[in-house]
């Protein structure tokens, strides 16, 4: 959107602004700003302390760092191979996203466009599956992986993450696809397209916004999940970056600077994704949440 900057308009805006401010409005703004500070300030405090040593933090918790001292970051990168862990996270979460979008899209298409015998049963299954917490399924899945010999491989995290995220993905995508009009499909049918072509050439492109939202959330949830990572990929060489948090917490519990650094290192990629893709995240999620 392009804004037209005319002096008159700006003046009007400022006038409107002052008319708007009444006592009620003032209180409302205060409450909103207070809540916004609870979400922003703690993170800023931690970011600030990630550049300082534990002694400095204890002595003066609120001061800014004397210099941008990267000692904590260097220390953290010696404890764990940060770049390698980022790579692992990217491979595992990226593959999960691709699988979830492909299989979730296929299942969602069928749920949105066909009537068949077990449809109701599958709908119920989806609702039940949404309620299942990860820690309920972890032991049997671990047994399966031991038997298959894939503990400590990328697959050991990709498979359960794909299964878990497929539930939400199928709901979101089928809700979106069911609102696509049948006319386009009928036209494609007359042109001699088969179901697979209709799916890939019509439904996938039309549902791009839904795919974007599902993809982003799948990535975030997969990237953020500490629990499964601890159980399925305990080996250092395949660990995702979130594991750094747990290691630093349990081994360097007294090193406040290092802990602050661990928080910042894990949070930064997610914050970037959020800032860049914000629009898809908030809008897409509410569309799905309210519809489903």
């Amino acid at each position, binding site marked *: 959107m392009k804004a037209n900057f005319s002096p008159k308009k700006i003046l009007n805006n400022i006038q409107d602004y002052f008319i708007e401010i009444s006592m009620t409005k003032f209180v*409302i703004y205060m409450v909103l700003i207070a809540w916004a500070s609870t979400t922003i300030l703690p993170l800023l405090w931690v970011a600030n302390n990630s550049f300082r040593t534990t002694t400095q933090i204890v002595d003066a*918790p609120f001061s800014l760092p004397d210099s941008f001292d990267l000692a904590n970051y260097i220390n953290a990168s010696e404890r764990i191979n940060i770049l390698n862990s980022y790579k692992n996270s990217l491979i595992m979460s990226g593959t999960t996203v691709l699988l979830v979008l492909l299989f979730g899209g296929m299942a969602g298409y069928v749920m949105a466009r066909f009537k068949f015998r077990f449809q109701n049963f599958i709908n119920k299954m989806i609702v039940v599956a949404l309620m299942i917490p990860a820690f309920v399924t*972890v032991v049997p899945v671990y047994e399966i992986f031991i038997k298959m010999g894939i503990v400590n491989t990328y697959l050991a995290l990709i498979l359960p993450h794909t299964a878990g995220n497929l539930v939400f993905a199928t709901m979101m995508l089928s809700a979106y696809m069911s609102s696509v009009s049948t006319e386009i499909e009928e036209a494609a049918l007359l042109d001699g397209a088969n179901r697979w072509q209709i799916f890939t050439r019509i439904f996938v492109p039309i549902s791009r916004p839904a795919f974007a939202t599902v993809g982003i959330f799948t990535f975030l949830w997969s990237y953020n999940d500490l629990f499964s990572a601890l159980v399925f990929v305990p080996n250092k060489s395949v660990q995702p970056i979130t594991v750094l*948090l747990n290691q630093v917490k349990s081994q360097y519990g007294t090193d406040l600077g290092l802990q602050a650094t661990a928080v910042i290192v*894990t949070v930064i990629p997610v914050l970037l994704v959020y800032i860049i893709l914000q629009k898809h995240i*908030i809008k897409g999620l509410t569309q799905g949440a309210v519809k489903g």
Partner: protein
Amino acid sequence: MLLTFSLEVETIKFKNDNKVIFFFLLPALLFWSIFLFYPIIRSLYKTFFFTVHNINPEFIGFGNYIKLLTDPVVWLATKNTFIFMIAAVIFQVGLGVLLAIFVDLIRYGKNFFRTTFFFPIVLSAASLGLLFRLLYNYDAGLLNSILEALNFEPVLWLDAAKALAMVMIPTIWQYVGFYFVIILTALTKIPNSLYEVAKIEGASTFQRITKITLPLIFQDIRVCIVLAITGTLKVFDMVWVITAGGPFDSSQVLGTYMYSTVFQRRLFGYGSTIAIFIIILGVIVTTLTNKFIGNRDVTID
């Protein structure tokens, strides 16, 4: 039923539709069967055995269930989980609704507030847990630093009396933005003409909220309440990172107790029994919620 999933399906008939349905659904169904439903059945089977380190299972009938009923920590964890639920409904949904109504009333900064309120959700509970541990730290945490700056004595935040509250606050705080966004979306769907009529008839802002806004978003508030309740049963990461259920089980919730039973005490059979208990509790609570909150639809006339 509130938690149902159904779509209005429009179809076009094809030849060989059944084959298509089968192949399109197959991958998803395989994933769900192997990684969600088989594990539950397998866990159910395990509840009848006593096994340490998951080897040499010994059949003990309902022994684990009897143990469950007489285990004081299970009851403590259940009680804590219920406290968590009530707090989540009151504060998470309550604050979400309040903030959404406020943001809907203002004119400037809507986007800013939406962005800042929502962003804790995209961060991992584990990293926020560690962040809050730093805030609670006795020597140099943010909270004690503020107290000291104001000349108060520092407080031991994570003692047995306060630990549960101290893990509840960040968990609730993280998801307020989620309910905020759902309600805000619902609010934007209310036609402006309704508010204009109210204005002409001389309604105050407060009357406008209680008489028009709240009844119309009631349906969405119900969805939020159900999501908040079921979400509580999944709480794990945050509690695990901040207190791991301690001190002396004071902040134990069912998820953390199940995890420590399996992965620390290595009691696989008993841990599975707790897992089954969590699922049963979830089904009961969701059914009750649906019953109590009822199905009173309000439409725009």
